[in-house]
């Protein structure tokens, strides 16, 4: 790696969250309102349209979980406990910068946690219909999208115009297609992009927008194209290839990806909400009802909280066909029932329909299972 030009050649090399924080601080200093979000379902186009900036709130460290467990049950999703603990301890710099927070009813633990943190910031909780193909689901979700727009307008005493929304839709589409193009470099064998770089790109792109972002993403594509042309690889030849699917990942749960590296394999794709998932799909441009266009696109996000969640399987098939992994690791956070149960169908799809080896890992942010995980990941790679 040392001979390669880093994709982000700045003072935040290997510190993607600090880079994102820098971006948010920069926007805030120019008067932008900061809207905290926890999830890919937050329609950030509305935040951009009001001249604001979204901030993805801290949720992936084991450190604040002890504090959270003073209030929340131990056998809860670590992501929820971590989010709550960060706020209680006031150690999430993103949250401290926010002027408002948006949440969605993706799961029971989260929606009740939002009630507990609502006292700290103005908060809008969007009710997410979980049978997305049922009649009326999109129309109902559009009401939540409209409600979020009204919340922002009333909270910040401004009007979000249709033309501003349309502009941010177009920018999002452009940005998302570039991020998708970057992730597609994962298909190269041997690898020319690391999972850390994919994670850096996703972390950067989710809180940035506009021409500077487009230029940066284009620069990254040029760097990756250059690596491809020069044969500059980041993995060994014949390294086993791993696609990560499942729950959102970051911070301490990246332990699983680090173990894949330790075993000499290469992660070629991140098919989850802190990877490619939020950048898939496009919002209809030039529609009569941009809020409906936004609602339609967001309801297509293939999260396990949805039923049926056919989009996840369609996407997995595309990713496996493009990236040609030897192993799919389905990373489930402890007590995330929807991803944990959906794993039954994912395993069947991956093993039987796609003929690829599969490993489900249920874990949290602690280091307690490192030994077992190393053995299980090592053995799954030996099989592949």
């Amino acid at each position, binding site marked *: 790696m040392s001979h390669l030009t880093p994709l982000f050649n700045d003072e935040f090399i290997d510190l993607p969250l600090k880079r994102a924080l820098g971006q948010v601080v920069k926007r805030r200093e120019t008067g932008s309102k900061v809207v905290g979000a926890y999830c890919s379902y937050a329609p950030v186009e509305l935040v951009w349209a009001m001249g604001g900036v979204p901030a993805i709130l801290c949720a992936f460290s084991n450190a604040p979980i002890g504090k959270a467990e003073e209030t929340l049950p131990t056998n809860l999703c670590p992501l929820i406990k971590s989010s709550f603990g960060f706020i209680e301890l006031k150690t999430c710099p993103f949250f401290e910068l926010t002027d408002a927070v948006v949440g969605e009813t993706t799961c029971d633990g989260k929606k009740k946690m939002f009630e507990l943190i609502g006292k700290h910031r103005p908060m809008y909780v969007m009710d997410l219909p979980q049978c997305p193909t049922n009649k009326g689901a999109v129309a109902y979700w559009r009401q939540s999208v409209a409600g979020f727009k009204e919340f922002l307008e009333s909270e910040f005493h401004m009007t979000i115009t249709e033309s501003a929304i349309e502009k941010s839709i177009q920018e999002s589409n452009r940005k998302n297609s570039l991020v998708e193009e970057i992730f597609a470099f994962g298909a190269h064998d041997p690898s020319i992009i690391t999972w850390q770089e994919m994670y850096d790109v996703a972390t950067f792109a989710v809180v940035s927008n506009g021409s500077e972002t487009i230029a940066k993403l284009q620069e990254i594509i040029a760097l990756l194209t250059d690596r491809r042309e020069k044969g500059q690889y980041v993995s060994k030849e014949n390294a086993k290839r791993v696609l990560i699917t499942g729950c959102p990942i970051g911070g301490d749960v990246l332990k699983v990806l680090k173990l894949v590296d330790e075993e000499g394999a290469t992660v070629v794709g991140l098919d989850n909400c802190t990877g490619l998932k939020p950048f898939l799909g496009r919002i209809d441009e030039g529609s009569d009802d941009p809020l409906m266009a936004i609602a339609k696109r967001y309801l297509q996000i293939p999260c396990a909280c949805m039923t049926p969640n056919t989009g996840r399987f369609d996407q997995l098939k595309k990713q496996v066909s493009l990236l040609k992994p030897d192993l799919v690791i389905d990373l489930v956070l402890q007590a995330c029932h929807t991803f944990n149960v959906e794993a039954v169908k994912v395993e069947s799809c991956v093993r039987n329909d796609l003929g690829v080896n599969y490993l489900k890992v*249920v874990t949290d942010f602690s280091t307690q299972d490192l030994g*077992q995980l190393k*053995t*299980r990941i090592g*053995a*799954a790679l*030996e*099989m592949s």
Partner: protein
Amino acid sequence: MEVIDLIKRFNLTINIKYFTILPLRKSQAPLRTQEVHIRRAGIDIGSRSIELTIMDGETCEVTERFQAETSIDLASQLRNIQDSYRWDVLVSTGYGRHLSQNILGGETVTEIRAYATSAHHFYSEIELVIDLGGQDTKALLLDPCAGQLLKFEMNDKCSAGTGKFFEMMAATMGLSLDELVAAARRGEKLFEINSTCTVFAESEVISLLTTGASVEDIARAIHESLLSKLVSLLSKVMKADAPSVLFVGGGAKNSTLVALLAEAVCKKIIVPEYPEFFGAYGAALLAKNTL
């Protein structure tokens, strides 16, 4: 019960050995020459014990077996082994495989691959393998044609339902492991211990003792509790028409558990002569392929 009695009991039972410790000795075999087959070794460094085996490079006949408790100073222990045994090629497996590789050299494999390899080598028809180790329990499904590992399941993080569970339960009851196993054989299935978590199960056992339940019946319930964990793990990889299960790891020496498992899964349970050596055997067999 007085606290002092508990301490005495604990002290009496804390050194329970689940295995026979064979003496560490210098290999008798001559140095490698043109006429002598090369010697390949496999070492399995588990949470509770270390097994080393040395095989004839051509015939795969086991020429040496060494076993010891895993010590706190594993590095010194490995150097000691290095000074006492000779081999031409070695593969390490088990939790300590990476430290072992640093000290002894050679390659590493996971114990899952090691078990799959040795199971197929010694029992070529076998499809299902269960390993009950010190802190892990694993169930494997093999393709008997090629010996390929098709699927495996293993406990996620805690050592519930592993050999450690028996050790702790025996200690709680003031019994040796052999006594616990023997008592369970005489016991009846009158009640359940619902937890395989060692800490929770201990409090269940203490509650049962205070209600006057017999030691035999409690010992049986302890076995049934672990059995349910084994059956659950096995059922995740289970192939209904597989006629038998190969039971390896130190836990396979528990004859009561073996009998209960056979009854529970309606399959023949095969326990090899040295079940705890199957990780080391597998490593040694894989050492062959690295020559």
